[in-house]
């Protein structure tokens, strides 16, 4: 029977373009013998002491709902951690919300703040969910392109140029998925000043902040006038290798947290208690394992970025995250063609830059969250393929 159910789908959902890389994902899924530099998560398994805390919680029968905002013990740990790391303090009682990953918190933040038609500025290339999440919250997403020459940092000038009346939110993500871009403190101060001038709110997704290799990560929330207008989003997926636990949090002024909480309490109720227990353990005792993982990413980054440059695929040095974003335009193919041919012919999986927005054209994302052995073999395969296919 023919499926006619499409007519039931809401217009604004139907209107969200099917992710341009879904097809590519299906191709990749079949290529079992390819080496993957396409995985957007740590290759490490969650450190044992964290897994053990979840098992212990299960043994103790911790199988209930929790406070909608999350366990108070967890919010207290988050408050301490955020204060130490980001130099902003939030009240565990009223200014912190624990949710199902940063993913859920992005959705909550947008839905809590946007009136239909409000505009949201975000820098691009960026994480795939930003613009669709804005559309699902009836907002209008406005991309501000970023460039390799600026290390994919958003410049204050570009932001000022892109601004238009009706812009309510600026979404930031540093270090950035997919580019590893970061923004320096001076530029961030200017951005903050502009945001204050225009009375905007910032949603700052700092999920990769621990994975900053050079210099200190600075949160925009810590800048003058920003705490009152920033939703700081953070989670456990990347730094603590806890993607499958699905847990993250938002820190913001009480009225905003309260608004996000209203949505969260009806659509999610609370984050899974086992994951919350594991998260407490991660914050209390997870630092050394986290630093070890960071050290490994750091060295892998140095290796893989140098290799891309040697192969004639210019690659800026990502200061954070576990993503390299080499420029493949010298191969004379679009990002999608390049990624598709490379996965078929060289058996190396990378994500076309355009998956992260039109300004990713000419680039691919290569995740170095994999073993040296894989990185060495993948870049060798790529080198042989380039020799054959580049004049």
């Amino acid at each position, binding site marked *: 029977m023919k499926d006619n159910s499409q007519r039931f789908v809401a217009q604004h959902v139907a209107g969200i373009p099917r992710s341009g890389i879904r097809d*590519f994902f299906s191709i*990749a899924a079949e290529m079992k013998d*390819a080496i*993957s530099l396409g995985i*957007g998560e740590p290759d490490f398994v969650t450190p044992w002491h964290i897994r053990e805390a979840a098992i212990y919680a299960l043994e103790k029968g911790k199988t209930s709902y929790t406070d909608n905002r999350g366990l108070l013990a967890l919010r207290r740990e988050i408050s301490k951690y955020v204060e130490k790391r980001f130099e902003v303090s939030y009240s565990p009682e009223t200014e912190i919300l624990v949710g199902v990953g940063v993913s859920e918190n992005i959705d909550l933040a947008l839905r809590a703040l946007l009136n239909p038609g409000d505009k949201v500025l975000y820098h691009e290339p960026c994480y795939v*969910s930003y613009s669709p999440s804005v559309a699902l919250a009836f907002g209008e997403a406005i991309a501000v392109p970023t460039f390799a020459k600026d290390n994919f940092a958003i410049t204050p000038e570009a932001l000022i140029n892109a601004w238009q009346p009706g812009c309510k939110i600026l979404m930031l993500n540093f270090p950035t998925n997919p580019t590893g871009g970061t923004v320096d403190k001076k530029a961030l101060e200017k951005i903050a000043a502009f945001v204050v001038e225009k009375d905007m709110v910032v949603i700052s997704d700092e999920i990769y902040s621990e994975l900053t290799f050079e210099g200190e990560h600075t949160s925009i929330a810590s800048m003058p006038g920003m705490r009152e207008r920033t939703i700081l989003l953070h989670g456990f997926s990347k730094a603590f290798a806890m993607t499958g636990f699905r847990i993250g949090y938002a820190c913001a002024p009480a009225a905003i947290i309260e608004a996000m909480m209203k949505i969260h309490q009806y659509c999610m109720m609370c984050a899974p208690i086992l994951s919350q227990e594991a998260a407490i353990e991660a914050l209390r005792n997870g630092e050394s394992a986290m630093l070890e993982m960071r050290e490994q990413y750091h060295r*892998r980054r140095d*290796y893989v970025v140098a290799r891309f440059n040697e192969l004639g695929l210019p690659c800026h040095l990502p200061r954070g995250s576990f993503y390299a974003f080499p420029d493949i335009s010298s191969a004379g193919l679009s990002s999608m063609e390049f990624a598709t041919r490379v996965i078929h012919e060289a058996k190396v999986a990378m*994500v076309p830059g355009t998956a992260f927005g039109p300004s990713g054209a000419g680039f691919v994302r290569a995740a170095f969250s994999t073993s040296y*052995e894989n990185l060495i073999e993948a870049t060798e395969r790529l080198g042989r393929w380039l020799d054959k296919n580049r004049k």
Partner: protein
Amino acid sequence: MNSVLQLIMEGESLTTAQMAEVLKISHEEVEKQLAQLKEQGKVLGWRPILNPDMDENSVRAVIEVKISPEREGGFDRLAQRISQFEQVENCYLMSGGYDLLLFVRAQNLRKVAAFVYERLATIGGVVSTSTHFILRPYKEQGFLLSGQQGNPDKPMISA
């Protein structure tokens, strides 16, 4: 720590040429650091970590040994002497209920037994021994034997 050593301790098997590439140092520098480690005595040797589950030609035992200390040198002479036997893979002086802890490997149970009563127990100064056979390994020098960790069905590509 020596950067080559740190890399090796992560447990991936890389050739020295690959190590040079990863660490962005010359091949000669890798060789030099390796030689240094041996020279300084920080690294005693290189050998693979075998999976004991796959080894059908030997049995292992742990032996607790009580010995009488000597006027000069305490436990050292006896400990060093016992360490000489090729069956003894590890030998430690312990606090607590006994003095030496030995990890012993031999072709079969009989040979371990023979080592204990013919060689070990007959040494002057060995007061008593207590032998425990290893039945099943679960972790060997940091490597878990319970199979692959992680999710084998992790998607090849994710955002």
